[in-house]
């Protein structure tokens, strides 16, 4: 799971796909996940990292992460 290399991501979590002209904005946690994806972290590493910093139900996090990355794939952000 990798962010396509031509996708521009700002520190604020604003994404721009230069091949389609589409742009998206995410909230804080979305922005953190994208930043971890950019560092080539695996799903389990991302879950570890987020669980460390937030008080969150692990199962819920796994489900939300799957939904979020599915969305990123649909929008051609993820390879």
């Amino acid at each position, binding site marked *: 799971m990798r962010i396509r290399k*031509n996708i*521009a991501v700002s520190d604020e979590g604003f994404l*721009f796909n*230069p*091949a*389609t*002209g589409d742009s998206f904005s995410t909230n804080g946690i979305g922005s953190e996940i994208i930043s971890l994806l950019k560092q080539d972290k695996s799903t389990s590493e991302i879950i570890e990292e987020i669980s460390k910093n937030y008080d969150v139900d692990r199962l819920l996090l796994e489900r939300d992460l799957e939904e979020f990355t599915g969305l990123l794939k649909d929008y051609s952000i993820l390879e």
Partner: protein
Amino acid sequence: MKKQIVIAVTALNAIDSPGPGVAVIRAIRDCKDFDVKIIGLSYEALEPGLYMHDLVDKTYQIPYPSGGTDSLYARLLYIHEQEKLDLIIPNFDAELYNFIKLRDKLNELGIRTFLPELNQFEARDKMKLFEFGQKHGFLVPEDKILHELRELKKMEDDLEYPIVVKGKFYDAVIARSYDQAEKAFLKIMAKWGLPIIMQEFIKGTEINIAALGDGEGNAISIIPMRKLYITDKGKAWAGITLEDDKLVELARKFIETTRWRGGCELEVMLTDDGKPYIMEVNPRFPAWIYLTAGAGQNQPASLVKMAMGEKVEPFKTYEVGKIFIRYAWDLITDIKEFQLISGNGEL
């Protein structure tokens, strides 16, 4: 001191379905490599560009394209006597035929143009586009040319709904049934006449590409753009430059194959599985051409340089993610100005 180039430009109708003239002039004026005097050539007294005196130095009315080449030539001769034109940049599809036909005669007067050859111009015509695509290996939607309404029923043997009903110069309507196709046929016929083009509907993302060819097969500039905001007339009110090697390659192949001279716009439908279909080729700059200057490849200024005999190297880079947003602006003028153009044909 730089030599002043006198350039005549048409299509000053900067309205909701705008002609490219004002954008072309703006891009030319942005270039600091030459001094220019801009002569506007207008068809109607209320084309907004006529009244933009910071862009257009003087305007002359010219006869409608339906008047033919003789009356156009006579008028251009008069304008040339007054202004000593160096170059004419026509920007309307409907007038290009006359200007191409007059190219050699204008050249004899010392007036340059930078237009495609007549065969290049005709090969990409809407009515021959399918044939053109087949010949040169471009993906192009299938179409049927209808010369009368009763052919519509027969067309259903070859094309399935939805189809795109198109006028020979402008207008396109998507029809999902015979009734809708008939209604669109009649509406477009009333406006643009016959024939009517029935085109296979291709689902995908619409991309527009502005390209400039040197006439020797080299693409000097290629800028792909996606419309971000579309008016009810299907015109881009905002758009963004894209990075897509496949689209750039497509435009390069088009320029190489046709040895296109001048500006053009490819209307492309990129299907979900990434196939680029050429839907239409407009034989002139698009109305959004100023974006090419904004993205670092000033196509109108490069055209001027080439037309004036300068060798222009192909651009290598442009800025991706540059956005244009069109806006409406109420220009205040006086009845005296309107009287000059509508009464004397000059402003």
